[in-house]
């Protein structure tokens, strides 16, 4: 019994670690901020909604990463999907006396067409990526980078054309007032249900089916997978389609949530959040390693930390999001690397690059302190700068001493 328990713990230590980290973040936030204690229900719903929205396409990103590729296009696919969804609703709705479509009159039928159409476009985008990667032999980074810049731009030029064709008036974004779509986008449990269903389906796919095992094998060693009679081209097709279609689902929900199709801003930079959630959740960018559960927890952890910072900062919290994601990704991956390699015994601040890095870390921690604390900004920042500098210098001194000792024998 204890043996199987240890095996269980070892196998899931990444997920368990994340779970502990999430609970810790929530506990700390609850002690600092009143809102968690006063309105736990509201806060929980909000975090779950945001986690679900991110998680839906983070799962897609994770599958592509596990398969040994990378998908940089999710943000742009979200924008494109929103455009397609809005455009279909716009084009199919009845028009008023001035010829302007009344999207609010569209019923379930039109919405179903719009959703299916959008998902189909997602499938086409994913298939196109797979074709570029397998047949044209482009590196996944390049193929999906082209989509990242190209698709959003295409969506932006599509909207004026669509609005002019349908209503005669050119606009740069589409206002979509559709009752059921808004319900889907705004209700917290819809996003959660979609996310949970997807996670369950993908978990079964990845850990219980032959296809899933083959995806792990391909991500771990593509040449060996091919020589084991695995049709890697088909698996890549599936992986990129899951990546794009999950982003399309998110695009539909975001359209309902914000009530517009605005490709200029929607989903900007989201691809990196998705990759970050996957990486924090334990996926390795070299492929073959990662889990669905880990990715879901990674998304929850990211949102919990972002929310915690928002609660403590109050104003302009959105600006901190990128910074938080950046720090967390580096920390999560570094912790993973340190666990396996020679760990903390390695030389971090060796040579000139090491000295410069001490300066960078000092400066960075000082700047972050300066923008994050609310009172005594400058003096607090100086204290942090001085202590970080002292600590890292001590570390460097110890490393140099250890090195000398070794070479002197």
């Amino acid at each position, binding site marked *: 019994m204890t043996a199987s328990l240890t*095996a269980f713990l070892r196998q899931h230590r990444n997920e368990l670690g994340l779970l502990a980290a999430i609970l810790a973040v929530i506990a700390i936030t609850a002690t600092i901020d009143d809102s968690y204690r006063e309105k736990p229900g509201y806060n929980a719903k909000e975090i779950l909604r945001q986690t679900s929205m991110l998680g839906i396409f983070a799962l897609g990103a994770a599958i592509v990463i596990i398969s040994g590729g990378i998908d940089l296009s999710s943000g742009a696919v979200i924008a494109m999907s929103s455009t397609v969804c809005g455009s279909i609703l716009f084009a199919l709705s009845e028009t008023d006396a001035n010829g302007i479509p009344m999207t609010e009159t569209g019923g379930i039928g039109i919405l179903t067409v719009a959703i299916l159409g959008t998902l189909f476009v997602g499938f086409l985008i994913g298939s196109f990526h797979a074709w570029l990667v397998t047949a044209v032999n482009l590196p996944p980074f390049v193929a999906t980078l082209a989509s990242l810049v190209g698709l959003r731009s295409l969506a932006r030029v599509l909207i004026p054309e669509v609005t002019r064709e349908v209503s005669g008036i050119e606009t740069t974004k589409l206002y979509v007032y559709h009752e059921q779509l808004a319900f889907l986008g705004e209700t917290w449990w819809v996003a959660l249900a979609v996310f949970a269903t997807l996670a369950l389906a993908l978990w*079964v796919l990845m850990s*219980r*089916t*032959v296809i899933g*095992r*083959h995806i*792990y*094998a391909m991500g*771990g*060693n593509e*040449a*060996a*997978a*091919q*020589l*084991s*009679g*695995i*049709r890697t081209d088909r698996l890549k097709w599936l992986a990129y389609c899951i990546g794009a279609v999950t982003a399309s689902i998110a695009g539909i929900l975001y359209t309902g949530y914000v009530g517009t199709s605005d490709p200029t801003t929607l989903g900007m930079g989201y691809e990196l959040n998705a990759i970050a959630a996957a990486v924090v959740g334990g996926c390795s960018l070299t492929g*073959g*390693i990662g889990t669905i559960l880990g990715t879901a927890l990674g998304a929850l952890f990211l949102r919990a930390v972002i929310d915690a910072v928002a609660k403590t900062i109050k104003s302009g919290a959105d600006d901190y999001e990128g910074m938080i994601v950046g720090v967390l990704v580096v920390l999560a991956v570094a912790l993973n690397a340190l666990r396996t390699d020679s760990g903390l015994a390695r030389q971090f601040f060796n040579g000139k690059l090491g000295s410069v890095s001490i300066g960078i870390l000092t400066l960075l921690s000082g700047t972050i302190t300066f923008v994050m604390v609310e009172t005594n900004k400058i003096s607090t920042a100086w204290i942090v700068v001085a202590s970080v500098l002292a600590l890292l210098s001590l570390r460097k001194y110890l490393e140099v001493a250890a090195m000398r000792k070794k*070479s002197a*024998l």
Partner: protein
Amino acid sequence: MIAPETLISISHVSKRFGGVVAVNDLSFDIRAGELHSIVGENGAGKSTLMKILSGVLTEYEGQIRLRGREVLFSGTRDAEEAGVSIIHQELNLVEELTVAANIFLGREKRTGLGFIDDRAMEKESAQLFEQLQCQIAPTQLISELRIGDQQLVEIAKALSLHANILIMDEPTSALTESEVERLFKVIERLQSSGVTIVYISHKMDEVFHLSDRITVLRDGKLVKSLERDATTPREVTHLMVGRDIEEVERRTGGTTGDIVLEVKNLFLPWTGHAREWRLQDINFSLKRGEVLGIAGLMGAGRTELLECLFGASPTQPQGQIWLDGALQFFDTPATAMQQGVALVTEDRKRLGLFDHMSVRDNITICSLEQITNLGLVSKSREQAITAESIDALGVKCDGTEVGISSLSGGNQQKCVIARWLRTHPELLLLDDPTRGVDVGAKSEIYKLINGLCQDGMAIILTSSELPELIKLSDRVLVLCEGLLTGRLEGDAITEKAIMEAATQRNS
């Protein structure tokens, strides 16, 4: 007689990788100006010791003294400065750069303005080749050179570093006979100019032709250092193996059945290469229960031939492949696998193993479809068939769930073979299956091969070790630069006959 001066003194050197002791308390001396051969089976610790001597591995126990002074190289750069250079079995050259650029890689000559001075480097390279009495143009790209010439580039590089200790790791494994002769002349010239050479090999004729002294390693330990004149190849072989080699009986005329495979006019194009064809007009057939050996030097096309039969060649071959009387077109390994062909690849680490997966994953990856219920893989059945395979092939491992990378090379290879046996192939292609496998596992693999063909499987086998090929094969085909230059059967299969056919075009 003056006692020869000790140049390198190795004392109590040990090195372990995780739980595996690669080198165990080694002590011996290398004298100035001698050619010192280090021999031993795969896994005896030769390569690890050489990596320590040349600064590739910097962490080990024990001491190394160079000219009486203790040294601890911080890297290969450091070792080179002390005059120690190594030529690895797998050459370390940048194929896209020229010969001169490779010789001076990392210490490029510059003009007064700080730009790269190609002309000076080319001039100096030309002088080095003159010194070696070889004709290689410094402006040629490495990718245009034959392997033998590439090796000379490495030697020239070592010379330009003023190396007075040169370590050569199995330098002749990829060379033709004439290239080997040229290399031996170069080695003699180096020796006469005072370079000490540490020569790693397991080919007895070479070792006895060149060496002054021979050191035998086994299982990471020193067995003995011997004067060449005071020993015999037989004694050295015996010391290497540590016991009388268990002779696997050469199979004699087993009952062979119907024709399984027929290859007709097989050509494999080689785009952008002067030779045009990797394989040219290959014809042969294979019967049930037969072991067909494919011999040839490195680059002769052994691996390429097996890849053609498995749909794994980078370009499509021309010609016909008939399996069980039906014409086949293998566009991918998946198609070949469905038709009952299996390939155990030569490069296990790169093309065979799924490193971070378990023994179970590695064994069942090709046959998962057999154990699904409603599309889901049945874990209990998977574990059961894995246990069955482990048992059948005698894989030594701590359960089905341990990582494949924790196993020894021989056991990893058994897992890869088990993977393919689970697909019940009719035709089994084994590309150098005992490469990097210890002696014990080797003889088990021999027994396995004999058993499989007795059960009626058709097997094609390649090997870098001729005795192995001779022992196991019913017939041997010899390739030389993509051409079939020899067909040997029965008692006609001898090392001499194979080598003659394998070097036909070169010497």
